[in-house]
């Protein structure tokens, strides 16, 4: 809904009026004196977002936001970038006023910690840190730290709610939408699939529980990018982890609702009263793919290995002071209470076979194809850009229903065609609205709908003076057509949001935060409240 406020009406009349009188006076461009009591003009907004080639959806959204900003008197410098240069410019160099980027929703982000702590605590606002806006609010920092140490769930929820409330008031970022959607699959060859929160058909429980039709023993899964590495001691992208966890086990896995459930562990961890000691007992008699038993020593070895070498997971293990093992139990002693230890450490670290990795000189450089884990799938073979082949580990305590799983990387548009040609069985990316319509019309194909926990958002660079005004930031947030983005641009895929914690994460999502829907009138009121004024040219100025 476009709203035309009294002010913008007056502005447009004013502008033509000014031009009119100037023209009558025969001296265009002479100041008519109406703007004398204005201060400096508000600096041009440097707005960085992706090119249409890199992300058609977000590019269109970016232009709509910029149009609205211009409508209410801002000057906007639209800087369209490819993905890498955009990340470099906004996250690393911090050279932006407003940037439009997304954050993927991986299972470890279901726990509110990363979204609240890493993305908004002032400790993370250095170059390349996750607090891109440079939000620095001591009061907020305190709440973020408290929620991380609060082991009692109800008490923690209160803090998490309060943090979200604060963020919605301060608007260091404008959260726009969780870009959930549909993943296509072949319903003729698959009796059922199991799309999961935040990941759709890429989810662990999908690969484990999908039911192939009679006579189908090999399932192909397409994805828009190849796996980079299966070695967690290297930089990992999300798709890599989604396959590593099929080959390796963890003590706990994120269940379908996002809470960690015991996996290699027999039961919930035993947590000491002060929240600093976590004791875990593991299953007996489970083996690696080469037949060697998985022992508590392998567990201890893995945690040491990751603490020393893994760029991604090191941080989560820094709080471990020492580990003790006895029988089938391991106790982790932490230097301070940590409410996130189960989600961020116990449910993340893959259990590696000590008898193989202890003998490897430099685990970070290990890149051959000796991927021996104890997970539900056995690594068979892999040729980059062609396919990766996995097969069922029959001896697993929870083996998958499918005999073989083939992962096929490639161009997303081409893979969608292959779904339509019935050449592949599942696809782990979202189709465009047009493609989705075609797939929905094919009786042999299905769409698996899922909710996302990641989000697309604007970040405001609060290090810059003109961006360090809450009224101005709120005004920009009121210029974001969130509904249009989800309903029209994305064809209804996704959910409008106003908070970093997705609605789908019911346990932690605060539904009562301040909301920002597209409303130019509200934006102008915010600006008025901030003392801004409009010149006769319709531009935004600081008041005297």
């Amino acid at each position, binding site marked *: 809904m476009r709203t035309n406020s009294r002010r913008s009406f007056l502005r447009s009349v004013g502008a033509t009026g000014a031009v009119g009188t100037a023209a009558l006076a025969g001296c265009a461009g002479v100041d008519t004196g109406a703007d004398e009591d204005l201060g400096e003009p508000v600096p041009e907004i440097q707005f960085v977002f992706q090119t249409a080639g890199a992300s058609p959806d977000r590019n269109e959204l970016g232009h709509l936001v910029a149009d609205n900003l211009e409508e209410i008197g801002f000057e906007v410098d639209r800087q369209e970038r490819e993905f890498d240069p955009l990340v470099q410019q906004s996250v690393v160099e911090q050279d932006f006023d407003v940037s439009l980027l997304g954050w993927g929703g991986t299972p470890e982000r279901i726990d509110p910690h990363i979204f609240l702590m890493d993305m908004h605590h002032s400790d993370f606002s250095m170059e390349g840190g996750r607090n891109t806006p440079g939000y620095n609010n001591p009061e907020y920092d305190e709440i973020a730290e408290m929620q991380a140490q609060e082991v009692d769930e109800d008490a923690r929820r209160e803090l998490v709610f309060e943090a979200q409330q604060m963020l919605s008031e301060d608007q260091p970022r404008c959260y726009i939408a969780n870009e959930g959607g549909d993943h296509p699959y072949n319903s003729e060859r698959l009796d059922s699939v199991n799309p999961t929160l935040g990941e759709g058909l890429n989810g662990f429980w999908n690969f484990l529980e999908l039911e192939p039709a009679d006579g189908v023993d090999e399932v192909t899964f397409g994805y828009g990018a190849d796996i980079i590495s299966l070695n967690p001691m290297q930089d990992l*992208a999300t798709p890599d982890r989604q396959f590593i966890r099929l080959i390796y086990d963890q003590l706990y896995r994120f269940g379908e609702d996002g809470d960690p459930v015991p996996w290699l562990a027999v039961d919930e961890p035993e947590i000491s009263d002060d929240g600093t000691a976590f004791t875990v007992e593991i299953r007996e008699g489970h083996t690696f793919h080469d037949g060697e038993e998985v022992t508590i020593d392998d567990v201890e070895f893995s945690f040491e290995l990751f603490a020393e070498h893994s*760029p991604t997971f090191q*941080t989560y293990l820094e709080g471990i002071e020492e580990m003790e093992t006895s029988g089938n139990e391991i106790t982790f002693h932490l230097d301070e209470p940590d409410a996130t230890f189960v989600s961020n450490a116990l449910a993340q670290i893959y259990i590696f076979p000590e008898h193989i990795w202890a003998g490897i000189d430099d685990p970070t450089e290990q890149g051959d194809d000796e991927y021996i884990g104890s997970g539900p799938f056995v690594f068979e073979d892999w040729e980059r850009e062609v396919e990766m082949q996995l097969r069922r580990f029959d001896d697993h305590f929870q083996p998958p229903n499918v005999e*073989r799983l083939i992962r096929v990387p490639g161009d997303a548009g081409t893979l969608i065609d292959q779904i339509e040609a019935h050449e592949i069985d599942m696809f782990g990316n979202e189709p465009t609205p047009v493609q989705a319509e075609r797939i929905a019309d094919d009786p042999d194909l299905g769409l698996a709908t899922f909710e996302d926990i990641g989000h697309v958002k604007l970040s405001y660079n609060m290090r810059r003076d003109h961006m360090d005004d809450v009224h101005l930031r709120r005004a920009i947030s009121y210029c974001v057509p969130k509904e249009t983005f989800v309903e029209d641009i994305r064809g209804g895929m996704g959910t409008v949001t106003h908070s970093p914690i997705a609605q789908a994460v019911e346990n932690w999502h605060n539904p009562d935060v301040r909301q920002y829907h597209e409303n130019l009138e509200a934006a102008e009121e915010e600006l008025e409240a901030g003392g801004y004024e409009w010149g006769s040219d319709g531009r935004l100025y600081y008041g005297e």
Partner: protein
Amino acid sequence: MGLREYIVRRILQLVFTLWAFVTLLFVLFRMVPGDPTTRFVMEYPTPEAREQRIEELGLNEPLHVQYIEYMSQLMRGEFGDSTHYREPVSELIFPLFLNTIVLMFTALIIAYTFGVIFGAAMGWLRGSRFERGGIVATLMARSSPEFWIGVILVWIFVFQLGVLPRSGIGGYGDELTMNVIDRYVNVDFLRHLILPALTGAIYYMATPALLMRNTMLEVLKADFIEIKKAEGLPERTVLYKHAARNSVLPLVTVVAIATGAAMGGSVIIETVFNWPGIGREMVASVTRNDYPVAMAAFFLMGTAVIVMNFVADLAYLYLDPRVKYE
């Protein structure tokens, strides 16, 4: 100046061109914003983890140090490790190169065989309806985007007739092998090859066809053709044995250069058909700032073009005695 001197001079030029090319590549890639870790910025829990990786890659060294390191590696015939995949570049791109070469050569052979025959016929039948139609068809093929040709073929053969596979290079789940015979000599592979090769062939065919037609028209004006005709030789013999033969000369250069360029594959065809080739990888490596892979791919492709140019010049010297080396 003798032939030997000429060749020596050309080889020196070649080396200089290559050096300039490689240096330019080095500078260009370093000018692009970002580095190999940029893509993971959001995956690193802390900036320190990223700094560490940049250090490992030697990207914090001064540029001249990196340049010297890179050049000395190249002298030893090494391309280093892919920063993205962390495996030796040679291991990564060898199979991709093979795939591309198989595809592009198939496409070029089809394009040049049919293009030459078709072009010769157009020249011979000057002013006929066949020629007019042929020119229109050729120009259309030439000016259609490759992906569009590909999509049309896909629509016909995959979605309407259902006789050919949509993409990839073989059946899924089959044994993955690097044995060239097992890889490329089987029905499955050939069925996957048809559409992408045909797409390339249709697109590339215009050059030889039009060039052939033009030179044919020149040659047909020549006296010796009239003489051959007067001798009462059958038309077909005159056309193919005498006129066409003499018209093929300019094509030598074109074939050589096309072959060089084909080493780089066609990004578009590879993307449309999910063909795991070097063209796609080259573009991907540039977007990922994976310098070693991008450099290696461009270097091999550039070298191929430069060398094939050289070969074309030499071939011309040999084929046409009227050409003088200077």
